[in-house]
């Protein structure tokens, strides 16, 4: 595999954003995802290859270590930041249509709930997997999901909740989304949820982690 792409994968896995970033200490002074993505484009590597062979494997590697308890939230967020930095350079190719986005994904933390670390990780990972992500933030009211769906009617919706008291709020969001947009797929996640709850409220899928969300969304795309 191309050396630049290999290095890029390592930068994503270890959260090396750019040359200036002091993290990780073992890569201090070295170039990061920012510079390597630019170098890759300059070397004529196709944006889609950068995405699929560089960024996605890096995120998968760190995601695996996170689920095994080998790295923690700070490192996972650094990997996502490195990936976002790389995506800045790929954005023009997405916009021009040269690289096709896999689809659009609207995500938000359900109303009443302000926890966003998990939601942010899902948003960044899905974006890194080639989706356009519209992040509505926290405490997202049903109307906000519906208004955004009106603008992007073919997208998938993701809702996150961390509180037992707010996970119930997901039911009304799912119900109203499905009433107005019956074909829209709704994916839910967050620590207190499970598949049984997801089925009960009429959501299409429950994912326990960002990787599961990506797998489900990518699969939709293949349907």
């Amino acid at each position, binding site marked *: 595999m191309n050396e630049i792409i290999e290095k890029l994968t390592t930068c994503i896995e270890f959260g090396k954003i750019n040359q200036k970033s002091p*993290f990780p200490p073992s890569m201090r002074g070295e170039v990061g995802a920012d510079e390597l993505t630019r170098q890759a484009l300059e070397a004529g590597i196709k944006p889609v290859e950068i995405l699929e062979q560089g960024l996605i494997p890096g995120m998968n590697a760190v995601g695996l270590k996170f689920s095994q308890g080998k790295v923690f939230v700070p490192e996972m967020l650094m990997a996502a930041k490195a990936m976002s930095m790389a995506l800045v350079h790929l954005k023009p190719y997405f916009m021009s249509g040269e690289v096709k986005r896999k689809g659009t994904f609207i995500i938000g933390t359900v109303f009443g709930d302000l926890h966003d670390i998990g939601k942010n990780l899902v948003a960044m990972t899905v974006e890194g997997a080639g989706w356009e992500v519209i992040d509505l933030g926290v405490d997202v009211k049903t109307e906000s999901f519906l208004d955004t769906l009106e603008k992007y009617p073919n997208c998938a919706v993701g809702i996150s909740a961390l509180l*037992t*008291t707010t996970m119930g709020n997901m039911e009304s969001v799912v119900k109203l989304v499905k009433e107005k947009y019956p074909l829209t797929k709704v994916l839910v996640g967050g620590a207190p949820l499970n598949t049984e709850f997801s089925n009960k409220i009429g959501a299409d899928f429950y994912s326990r982690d960002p990787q599961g969300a990506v797998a489900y969304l990518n699969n939709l795309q293949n349907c």
Partner: protein
Amino acid sequence: MTEWKNSILAHPEKIAVPVMTYPGLQLIGKSVMDMVTIGEVQYHCVKALSAKYPAIGATTLIMDLSVEAEAFGSLINFSENEIPTVSKRLIDSFEQVVNLKIPAIGDGRTKSHLTAARLAADNNTALQVFGGIIGPYSLAGRLYDITEMMTAILIEPEGAHDLLNICTSFLKEYALAFKKAGCNGIVIAEPAAGLLADYQCEEFSSRYVKQIVDFVQDDNFMVVLHNCGNTVSLVESMLGTGAAGFHFGNAVDMCEILPQVPSNRLVFGNLDPAGVIKNGSPEIIKVKTKELLTRTSQYNNFVISSGCDIPPGTKIENIDAFFEAIAEYNKG
């Protein structure tokens, strides 16, 4: 306080110290908004709870994770029946730390919480009264944004330390104010540190918590450190703070925690406050409570508690079930 601790260690009979203020609202007919803004209401809540449940081993005052950030100047969202929350970050770069003014004790709603503490202590609502404050790393996260604070410890550690120093300066004084109000101790809630690796927790949380402990803890005033994350590998760092007690959330199995803690330090935990105590049936609560007591029976330093604050709206019959289960367990 040492006396209270020693009596717990000496008696195999179990006492309960749930982190509980909100269920008292139903007993006195007030709202969450009243509770978080009016010290007298908070006092009447805990007084009503202690009167109803004489088996409460200690009164814990509100675990309000927004009051300290509000005192620094953060905007807070209030609603009648929800716990208040910080609406947006106060600073977005560490350069702004120098502009932060350390709040005076009594600023914002700290005054109301200290009033509740003084009234509860003066009127002996229970054998012991614990005030509640947020931990340094969690407060820094409230001021700087928690997601940003997670990565700041890796890319801007000096800035993170600057902010933590300011937060700790204030928290030391706030903790002292609870001591002066007559409390027997405080619970320091440090939930965000539960997401860190052990060495990160040590550098960016425990080191600062230790400063608070050193500043206020003595034979008459106990610090209990609460962390509701997956703390199995953080226990050593938590112990290093010197706190006399440790309170764990329901993310952990107490049987993995207790063997790590010396038998002269109290360990509180960890019935799921939302899934079991709020949403469970009285039967389930009884089963889970007895199960936890049985599994931890060999540890005299274990005090049964909720894993975190018992949420508003929890039915009184559920709290009844919790105390009934303990009484039945103690009868044998």
